[in-house]
């Protein structure tokens, strides 16, 4: 009964989406306010029905109703409740339902909070949103229905893949989807602007917060996934340049570029056409990511050929939306008027440079990910493109970008003073040089790469701080004045500084981890000791334990530093009987931003157990950086300018702009 209700709610949501995708457009054409307003109520009702459908699937999983195929294939009655719930999106059908749920959520938010949008713009935006929703409802209902029943219900389920039974799974996919799907809003706004043939600063002011929301979630989602892989997969890697990762990195790079170009558009009314194109591309890359991972084309081109229903369906959606929006762009973009002029050395110029490098980086990932697929389809040649390729092509793009980064916020709009900016960055430059010199002396004989890269990171962080110092006047003025000035500073300025500092901090973590990572691989028996990076680890014992749906082997390591006992680390290896598979649960000991990391391997007959122990200096900065970036994004989001929104391009708005 619950399954059927959920299914029916989804069909109703499709019907509502079809109404929402047509009537408002007609309303906008005929200037019929009642028809345009249909968009709002349809979007809200659609959200209600998808939420009901999603709740139905969650209930089925929570109550372990094995008469539903989806529950039977991915759940087990002994699984802890939290993993029963997170298992809902741990499989194809459920995660697609989550996808459309989030899509409807964003549509509902625009409907609920879009009261100050021009009526026809809102009607168009929600209609475009409903086109996307309709396509994906059809996809779910035709090829991936999560509510199918089994004729003879089995007693027990097949259990969820053990790797996915982790708290990381509870949070990572929803975050990532909020990011992916969130970009659909900027896409809908872009397409709506193209249909209307009108675009102004108010449009940009509306798009920016939505892009920012999606970007914050995507940033956190990627960082969280990376940390999850780091502790769950047991070999301490945190980024693998896997096509699935690349699928999430591409929209992030394009979305970051979009955030920056939207600033130019909002403040200076320039780069309009480019911003529209970026909005389309960013969401297209989200769709491409969905296609890549959903169709099975990554596993092998042949797997895609043998079971093509889903793949072809998504490919079709992809072609219609990307092809359609780009055609519309080609047709209508020239109708949009170009905005303000600026000199190459200016804030706008810096942001354009940012866009050039970010989009090139995005293109590099795109080519590296899709080239092997294209080559295999066209010529049958099989090649691999992996980490070494990306390290060589992707990383260098960030050097000029990061050198230029601190200059951007210090340059004036329209025409900037590079020399003045350089003078104001002299303290940051000196800090970077000191960092390079100290590291160089400390790692005598080591490669020059690490000190230089860390120097660059220090420059970025110090540059962000000197921008703040400059604006608050903290070193020039009495303390009270500086405090008052810092309170008066727009939150988005603080946000920029935090986000930029986050980039530098992540880079420090990346360089330290890859350069000074130490590793011990060996076989240890109880009471054996080993030393790594000054820490002494003693294997105190190995015991067996029974978990709710697994058995685990736990090893106790006594950790001491300079003879003083510090802590006990307990890595384990879990065997899940239902799926006959195992996971390693690494033990982590955090010391400042550095970590000791132990993971267990196979036990030998003589009682010895294979262990891998790592010392990863400053590794936590890799994820602390993105968290700081997301925090900066949130600060910027709370800026009064964005909260106020932009009802109409009224004169009052212009006045507000000039005040900055």
């Amino acid at each position, binding site marked *: 009964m619950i399954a059927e209700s959920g299914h029916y709610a989804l069909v109703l949501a499709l019907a509502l989406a079809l109404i929402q995708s047509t009537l408002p457009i007609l309303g906008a054409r005929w200037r019929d306010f009642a028809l345009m307003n249909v968009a709002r109520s349809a979007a809200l009702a659609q959200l209600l029905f998808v939420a009901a459908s999603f709740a139905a699937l969650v209930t089925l999983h929570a109550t372990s109703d094995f008469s539903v195929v989806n529950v039977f294939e991915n759940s087990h009655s002994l699984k802890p409740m939290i993993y029963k719930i997170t298992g809902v999106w741990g499989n194809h059908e459920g995660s697609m339902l989550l996808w459309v749920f989030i899509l409807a959520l964003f549509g509902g938010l625009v409907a609920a909070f879009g009261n100050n949008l021009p009526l026809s713009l809102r009607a168009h935006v929600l209609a475009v949103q409903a086109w996307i929703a309709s396509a994906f409802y059809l996809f779910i209902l035709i090829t991936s229905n999560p509510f199918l029943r089994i004729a003879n219900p089995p007693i027990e389920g097949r259990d969820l893949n053990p790797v996915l039974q982790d708290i990381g799974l509870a949070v990572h996919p929803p975050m990532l989807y909020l990011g992916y799907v969130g970009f659909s809003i900027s896409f809908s706004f872009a397409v709506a602007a193209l249909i209307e043939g009108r675009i102004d600063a108010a449009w940009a002011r509306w798009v920016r917060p939505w892009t920012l929301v999606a970007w914050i979630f995507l940033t956190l989602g990627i960082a969280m996934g990376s940390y999850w892989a780091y502790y769950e997969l047991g070999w301490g890697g945190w980024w693998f340049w896997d096509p699935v990762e690349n699928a999430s990195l591409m929209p992030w790079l394009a979305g970051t570029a979009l955030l920056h170009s939207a600033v130019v558009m909002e403040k200076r009314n320039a780069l309009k056409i480019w911003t529209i194109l970026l909005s389309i591309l960013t969401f297209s890359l989200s769709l491409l990511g969905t296609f890549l991972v959903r169709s099975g084309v*990554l596993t092998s081109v042949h797997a895609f050929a043998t079971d093509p229903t889903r793949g072809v369906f998504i490919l079709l959606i992809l072609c219609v939306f990307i092809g359609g929006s780009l055609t519309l762009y080609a047709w209508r973009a020239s109708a949009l008027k170009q905005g303000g002029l600026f000199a190459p050395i200016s804030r706008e110029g810096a942001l354009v440079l940012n866009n050039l490098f970010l989009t090139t980086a995005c293109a590099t990932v795109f080519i590296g990910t899709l080239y092997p697929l294209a080559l295999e389809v066209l010529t049958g040649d099989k090649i691999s493109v992996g980490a070494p390729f990306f390290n060589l092509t992707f990383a260098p793009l960030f050097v000029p970008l990061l050198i230029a980064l601190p200059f951007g916020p210090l340059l004036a709009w329209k025409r900037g003073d590079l020399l003045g900016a350089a003078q104001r960055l002299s303290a940051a430059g000196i800090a970077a040089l000191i960092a390079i010199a100290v590291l160089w002396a400390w790692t005598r004989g080591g490669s020059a790469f690490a000190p230089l890269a860390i120097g660059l990171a220090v420059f970025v962080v110090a540059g962000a701080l000197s921008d703040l110092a400059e604006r608050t006047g903290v070193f020039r003025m009495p303390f009270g004045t500086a405090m008052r000035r810092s309170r008066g500073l727009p939150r988005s300025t603080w946000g920029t500084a935090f986000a930029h500092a986050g980039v530098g901090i992540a880079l420090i973590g990346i360089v330290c981890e890859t350069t000074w990572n130490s590793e011990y*691989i060996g076989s240890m028996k109880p009471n054996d000791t080993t030393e790594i990076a000054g820490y002494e680890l003693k294997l105190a014992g190995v015991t067996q334990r029974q978990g709710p749906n697994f058995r685990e082997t736990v090893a106790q390591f006594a950790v001491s530093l300079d003879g003083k006992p510090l802590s006990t680390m307990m890595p384990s290896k879990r065997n899940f009987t239902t799926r006959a598979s195992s996971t390693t649960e690494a033990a982590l000991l955090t010391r400042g931003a550095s970590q000791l990391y132990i993971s267990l391997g196979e036990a030998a007959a003589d009682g010895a157990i294979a262990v891998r122990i790592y010392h990863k200096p400053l590794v936590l900065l890799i994820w602390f950086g993105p968290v700081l970036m997301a925090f900066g994004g949130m600060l910027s989001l709370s800026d009064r300018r964005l909260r106020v929104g932009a009802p109409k391009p009224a004169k009052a708005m212009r006045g507000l702009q000039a005040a900055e």
Partner: protein
Amino acid sequence: MRERGEVRKLIVISFVLLMAAFAASSAYAVQPDEIMSDPAKESRARDLSRELRCMVCQNQSIDDSDAPLARDLRLLVRERIAAGDSDAQVIDFLVARYGEFVLLKPRLEPHTLLLWLLPPLALVGGGIALWVHGRRRSRLAAAKDQSTFKLTAEEEARLERLIAAEPSPDKPG
């Protein structure tokens, strides 16, 4: 049918994991018994392993993979190094045996030309496009400035008349 189910499961895992598609089971790469006694040679073997693909895994290097094939390849690399091969010779040996698929960083050859050239071309092309666009716009703007601010002869004459007709401020009336 079963196989298809397995493939689909793999896809499902790969999507949800997003970070590590291949992690169907716990990964445990280099085993203690594989390590070479000479640390310099071992570190060469590790560096080479990171450039080589485990062909049965999804986009995983043999250094990271716990598949039996990856272990065989790791041992083979160490064997060749022990036999005195240079890094390039080891790579050539593996390519001769397993094809180019084994390299995670493809060689620059006719069929990978675009792969290697497109990223730098995108940067250079983008830069040139920006430069040309910027120049054209500023020239257009300059031309527009001149045409807007230059008055026609008729306008000049009219302006003269208007100024002459305007009552001067210090002589009211």
